[in-house]
């Protein structure tokens, strides 16, 4: 009996301790984020982005957008990328062995012809299929279309790094809608920094489902009816407004969303480009770049821009949602495993002692702890060891904390970007804050556990399909 009691006490202590640590870390991150957001807003109110737009000496940027079977929206998406207000940029579309008529559509829409193009093959990639295309129409002179054999997103991005002649590269998902001022906002930290090198910058990703978009421009922001998408909106707001802002302040960002990130091309090439063997290439390259800079003992920073610059379509079915989160989990496991050397290693300073341990504990281990906790709870119920008053008290407390955290996120959004300003939107977000922990969180947990299972027992699974409905016709 004593042994059972000791085991139960120990497990109680572990689960309780883990929960307290997680909650404390969220609170600390939220407080740092709040201060940093206020600071950013104050500083940003002095910035004039118009001068950089017209300057011929503004640094050159390549937008690299891999596309695989994106025929439905490819023409519209490219038009959106070409309508950026920044002066010195080009758009490189990598048609990564699409089986549909993406290339034919692009050729017809943009008057493309095949050209001989200088390519510096610094990174190994799959070879060209039909070749490189440029437009005969001067209106589309910024556009470069590459048709290559399929090698996956990372391989396509590496091809983009090889073909780009510009100093900076913006790696994006082709279906993302970039706001017209996104590039000058993203380039700012690179140009502003004088005492440390900015190696990459990430932007906020917002969800565009149900938003009104025409000719590649965001006209009207709406909230979708689907509860799963609304839950994701809240989740993204929480992550970007109350999480990444703090990591940016601590210079501990380990991930820049693959949907939109700007990189110093030289550093990206020096570290060997994207890893084609992982499904979490967006996180992996940042960790590798940071590791490289730490090992060089160079002063550097991964910047973060809290402005809503990039809008994307979120999964609106549980199947696709689970597949996406499954992939994110596998990507996290792969990256943390590959770079385990930096974990808890004081040589890597904050990266090794703060960022890595946080990701390991609260991203990698958290779903496992959660599921183990649930199993443990079921065992306790089965054996009649549950003191229900304790269980219910903790459950209510956890739920209320979750809801409060989401409501603080909504308030932060109101005080900063105020994007969901239409009547009724506030109420809908609040409703979602109350329902999300019950409806959405179990699905997220399931996807994370499935991701763990697939990583260890189902190695064949790679990316998974994302069926696009398209944003342009909304």
């Amino acid at each position, binding site marked *: 009996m004593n042994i059972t009691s000791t085991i139960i006490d120990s497990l109680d202590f572990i689960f309780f301790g883990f929960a307290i640590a997680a909650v404390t870390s969220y609170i600390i991150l939220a407080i740092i984020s709040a201060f940093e957001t206020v600071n950013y807003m*104050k*500083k940003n*109110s*002095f910035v*004039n982005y118009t*001068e*950089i737009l*017209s*300057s011929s*000496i*503004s*640094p050159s940027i390549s937008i690299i957008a891999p596309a695989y079977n994106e025929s439905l929206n490819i023409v519209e998406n490219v038009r959106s990328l070409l309508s950026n207000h920044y002066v010195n940029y080009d758009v490189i579309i990598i048609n990564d062995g699409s089986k549909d008529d993406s290339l034919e559509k692009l050729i017809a829409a943009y008057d493309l012809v*095949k*050209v*001989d*193009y*200088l*390519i*510096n*093959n*610094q990174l190994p990639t799959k070879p*060209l299929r*039909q*070749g*490189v295309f*440029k437009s005969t129409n001067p209106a589309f*002179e910024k556009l470069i279309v590459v048709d290559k054999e399929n090698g996956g997103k990372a391989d396509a991005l590496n091809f983009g790094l090889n073909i780009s*002649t510009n100093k900076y590269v913006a790696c994006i998902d082709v279906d993302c809608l970039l706001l017209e001022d996104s590039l000058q906002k993203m380039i*700012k930290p*690179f*140009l*502003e*920094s*004088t*005492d440390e090198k900015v190696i990459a910058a990430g932007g906020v990703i917002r969800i565009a489902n149900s938003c009104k978009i025409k000719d590649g421009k965001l006209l009207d922001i709406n909230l979708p009816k689907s509860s799963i998408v609304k839950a994701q909106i809240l989740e993204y707001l929480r992550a970007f407004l109350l999480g990444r802002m703090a990591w940016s302040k601590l210079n501990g960002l380990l991930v820049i969303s693959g949907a939109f990130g700007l990189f110093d091309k030289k550093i990206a090439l020096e570290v060997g480009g994207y890893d084609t063997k992982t499904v979490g290439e967006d996180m992996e390259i940042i960790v590798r770049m940071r590791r490289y800079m730490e090992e060089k003992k160079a002063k550097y920073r991964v910047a973060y821009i809290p402005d809503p610059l990039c809008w994307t379509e979120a999964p609106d079915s549980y199947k696709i949602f689970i597949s996406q989160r499954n992939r994110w989990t596998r990507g996290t496991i792969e990256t943390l495993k590959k770079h385990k050397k930096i974990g808890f290693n004081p040589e890597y300073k904050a990266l090794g002692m703060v960022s890595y341990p946080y990701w390991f504990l609260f991203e990698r281990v958290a779903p496992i702890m959660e599921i183990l906790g649930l199993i443990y709870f079921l065992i306790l119920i089965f054996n009649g060891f549950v003191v229900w*008053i*304790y269980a219910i*008290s*903790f459950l*209510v*407390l956890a739920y*209320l*904390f979750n*809801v*409060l955290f989401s*409501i*603080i996120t*909504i*308030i932060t959004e*109101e*005080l900063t970007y*105020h994007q969901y*300003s239409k009547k009724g939107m*506030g109420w809908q977000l*609040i409703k979602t804050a109350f329902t999300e922990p019950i409806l959405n969180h179990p699905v997220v947990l399931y996807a994370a556990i499935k991701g763990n299972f697939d990583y260890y027992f189902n190695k064949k699974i790679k990316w998974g399909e994302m069926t696009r409905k398209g944003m342009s016709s909304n």
Partner: protein
Amino acid sequence: MLEFFQNSIDSLSSMHIIIKICIYLSLVLASTIFLSLIYLKNLRDRLKIKRRIEATYQKKYESDLIEYLYAGDDETENEQQQKIVIYLKKCAANRLKRKIIIGTFLKLKNDVSGETADAIQKLYYQTGLIESATSKLKSKKWDVVAKAIRELTQFEIKETHDEIIKLVNHPKKQVRFEIQKYLVQLFRFEGLEFLNIIENELSEWDQIQLLEILNKFKNLQLPDMSDWLRSKNDSVVSFTLKLVRIHNQFGVKDEIIALFNHSNPEIRVEAINLVNHLGIYEAVAILKTGVFERTLEEQIAFFKMMEEMSMPDDIEFIKEHMNHKNFYIRISVMKIMNLITVGDDNTFTINNIAEEYQINTNLTKAS
């Protein structure tokens, strides 16, 4: 009801301490959620009302301003105009209204010129807005100082120059940049005097913005840039190199040649990049000696420069690097030897004139 509460309190007091903490915390969280919801509702309403108020006042001040501008003759102010001045002065005492008035003045000032613009400037003085802005220069809050300098720049108030230049090495970069913009916007190239005294680095972002402001002013007397090219502040040197490029300052060629041995490799590359732009032919021989002791970036810049500056005598030297391990150097060599032609858009054609040279296989031909 009272009995229910009494019973609840009694049963709570007999509970374990952890349960008590949980219940108290839950009550605190529930109350915070409730208060947050009220705050959120209030915040959304306030933002809507604020926008409405701002729009109303803006309309009102716009019509007052237009009335002021068209009410009197050029020389004297009539009673109606004086009334408007008094009214606006009274409104300017309120922070929100002052902000709207300044916005309204600026909006119109940017759209007009000549006498109308002068009249708005005059009104800026009469309504006491200038005193409000200058008094803020002494504020301990950096954002207040920066906003004041920006306002003085927008209204082109030159008489605050001496006071503002004292702040040129302000600890906050946002303030420093507002000062730099003030000086350049109002005093053109003379405003670049700050380059002699700045102690901090001028970021690339600041440099681009300042150059864009200067680009708007044509046919102005350019200052002597030699001292800045010898500055110990690398960012001043870098900024000056950009000025030299934009304004084709061949006169500073000796200083540029001296920069080939600057301690900062980025400055050395920028200096090499200028050789071709300014046509400094004597620099070619200097650079050619010991080019491979330089950094790879400098070597690339050198070969890029040679694409335009090489002479027939240089061909033997160039030819030796046909198979250089660096892609950009190889391409430059092939271009110099006229083996390939590369367009501005990076497309290329292989020329058939030199069969004895084998074209590098790394060139990816699509056709």
